[in-house]
């Protein structure tokens, strides 16, 4: 069991200094260790074939899940047209004030 899941202070400190690669890497390694164990235990032919395909199945599922999440989040991308319009107005006002105060010259106004 990865030490991340224990509550000992030392283990948590070690986890905190582990890079994300090591954290994910050890979890993946853990799953593979379990997978290898299952493969080597005495199982029937049909079950063994199913277990053999598990990692591939997991990868494909992750890929499909990713596409779904990205697609959904793209469709629900928040926009802010109102803020853009308000900004346009504020820019014009600000530009006239800056011109009036001599900070910007008239030909600089777009």
């Amino acid at each position, binding site marked *: 069991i990865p030490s991340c899941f224990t509550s000992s202070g030392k283990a948590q400190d070690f986890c905190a200094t582990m890079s994300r690669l090591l954290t994910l890497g050890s979890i993946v390694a853990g799953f593979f260790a379990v997978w290898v164990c299952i493969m080597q235990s005495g199982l029937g032919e049909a079950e063994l074939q199913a277990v053999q395909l598990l990692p591939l199945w997991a990868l494909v599922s992750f890929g499909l899940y990713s596409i779904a999440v990205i697609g959904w989040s*793209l469709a629900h991308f928040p926009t*802010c047209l109102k803020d853009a319009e308000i900004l346009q107005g504020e820019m014009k006002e600000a*530009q006239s004030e*800056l011109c009036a105060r001599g*900070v910007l010259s008239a030909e*600089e106004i*777009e």
Partner: protein
Amino acid sequence: GRGVRRRGALGAMTKYSVIIPTYNERRNIGILYLLLREAFAHPSLRDDEFEIIVVDDNSPDGTADVVAALQREFGDKNLLLRPRADKLGLGTAYVHGLTHATGEFVIIMDADLSHHPSAIPKFVAEQRASGCDVVTGTRYVPGGGVHGWDTRRKLTSRVANYLAHVLLAPGVSDLTGSFRLYRKDAMLDVVQRVKSRGYVFQMEIMVRCKKAGLKVREVPIAFVDRVYGSSKLGGAEIVGYLKGLLRLFMTV
């Protein structure tokens, strides 16, 4: 842990330093300054002091001159120009601004008006309410948003974000955002360890803040991109992003 900041009986004043790196922002910096003044006049910020630190990288278009004109015209002793000799990059611009900042908190933002100062009172309110160390503006949640991106750009953003979430689990919805409020001492401490440049800098500093155990909260912001048309997201930038992401994945 850190308690929620309480206002003293006499209305203890907090000072905030707004750090704005600029390069060729002559047309925008004046407008931004006026919008900032408006934001600082918000009732919730009545008892607070704000300073603006413009870090100009020797802009050839005379941005520094416009800032000097603003200083003269408004007599604002809290508008500071801290220029640098050359275009030295965003990360070091923030550090440069930090060394001159005298506030307890710093707010970093872009000079091109994509970030609207009206969000500043919201950042401050969030920090006060939660006692957190960092408030980060997020463009990607309802309440926030982006204007000026086509579908391709949005897709790039979503894929990039998804990758970052899988690889880094950053706990924030907008990793590359650059409109943030930091407790100054915390930022000074973390920024020493950041090695990236450009927008990967924003990613790295957020990931390192989280790792250092700092408390981070998010506030939705509107992002109005008026430059996307002229500065497209090219292949080189995408590769740079992926490289930066991978490096953070392996080292942080």
